[in-house]
């Protein structure tokens, strides 16, 4: 019975928290707008903004599916853009390798320029792409962002 319960528990709790840098912010009211937009997301438990450095830490609710892309969209909806986005994922001995497609919590991931390795425990990942990086950083990575995943949206990350 216990085994069955474990089997049917959704595996959505692997993301612990995310850190996000926001560009274009200079005022506390703007910062508050970003925070309130992120807080509207169903899977977000808490947000701590660092006004001086225009960064934020996002904490997630347990058992909820975390959609990292929605955090970036919330920043955009508030009228600003993402400088960087990192998230800590709790791995359970998954093997990652360069450009290999890996499914984590129901989403496709491609690990860019990452050597083959088994990941266990809390590992920070940096998200790549136009939505998650400022333009000049994105341009450096753009040529590496090729998905080998079949169908659906692919998150590009690097360790």
């Amino acid at each position, binding site marked *: 019975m216990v085994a069955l319960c474990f089997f049917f528990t959704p595996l959505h709790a692997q993301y612990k928290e995310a850190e996000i840098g926001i*560009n274009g912010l200079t005022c506390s*009211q703007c910062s508050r707008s970003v925070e309130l937009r992120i807080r509207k997301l169903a899977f977000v438990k808490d947000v701590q903004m660092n006004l*001086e450095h*225009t960064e934020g830490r996002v904490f997630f609710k347990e058992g909820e599916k975390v959609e990292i892309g929605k955090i970036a969209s919330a920043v955009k909806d508030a009228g600003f853009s993402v400088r960087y986005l990192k998230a800590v994922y709790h791995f359970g001995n998954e093997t990652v390798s360069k450009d290999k497609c890996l499914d984590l919590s129901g989403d496709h991931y491609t690990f860019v320029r990452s050597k083959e390795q088994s990941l266990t425990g809390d590992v920070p990942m940096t998200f790549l792409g136009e939505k998650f990086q400022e333009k000049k950083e994105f341009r450096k990575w753009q040529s590496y962002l090729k998905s080998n995943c079949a169908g659906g949206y692919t998150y590009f990350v690097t360790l």
Partner: protein
Amino acid sequence: MRWGLLSLCCVLCLFFRAGGQELFILNEPASNIPKHTLGVRAFGNTYRELNAQRNMGALRLMYGLTPKLTVMATGTLSNHHDTILPRFLADHTHSGSQTAGATGTVVKGLKYPYLFNGIHLYAKYRFISKDGRNEHFRAAVYAEGSFLKVAHDETEPNLLDDTRGVGAGLITTYLKDRFAVSFTGGVIIPFEYNGYMLNNYYLGPEYNVQTELKYGNAIQYNLSFGYLLLPRHYKDYKQLNLNLYLELQGKSYASAKIRQTDVHGTTDIQISSPLLLANHYVDINPGIQFIVRSDLRIDFSVGLPLINRSYVHYYPLYTFGVQKYFYF
């Protein structure tokens, strides 16, 4: 003029020494309201017109339809206008609550009532966003239109609370750390006023003269500077923010055209009043703004003439406002 130049010099020195905020009191920045956010702004202005105090109050609702598109609707109430155009329209001047004609006759008893002027609609679309750490450059286009019917008796068009019409323009805003600068250039195409001009106080309204008043087309050019004075370092949302602003508001407009119809037929009227002749001016508006708990904006500014003057208001023109966002 002297005070205007002095305050311009002081604030510009301060800006260039240190370096801001784009939550301008009078001019719109190129930035938008966050998506699905409602902004409510209550604002008004007041000035002394010789013996009369002229007041305007407004309620504005703003909504972020998308991150790039903001729409606004503003309703205004003021005692700036009579219910019909004043006697001696073509050569009148204002004197407190009275209107003086070229004959030197002071027409007594003209008391301007508080009237609901109408609704002003505004939409702004941001099409350029270049964001960096603690800085951004943004550009937006805007379009505006007003549904007003007030007996505005000067040629200068003002879509917010004086004249019916349409307008459009471009806004560019640059913000770096504590400093913000924004330029707005646009056109205003007012629609004509069709109504009546007072003929004689002692005769009935049937003697009033049917009048078409075509206001002058205008271009406007506004330049705003903003500077975040406090806090020096952000710690939390509870810190009181103090922003300083210096806003230049300029307008250049054409002369009015007046056509009147009476029992003798329709006549184009010769204009001699400076209130109805072409003009250009720049007002300077130093202002201060408090942001309480990163949520409630309270602002105040004083308008002074810098180059020429506007004839739709006297100086100093005091403007005040309170604004709050509601997130959905």
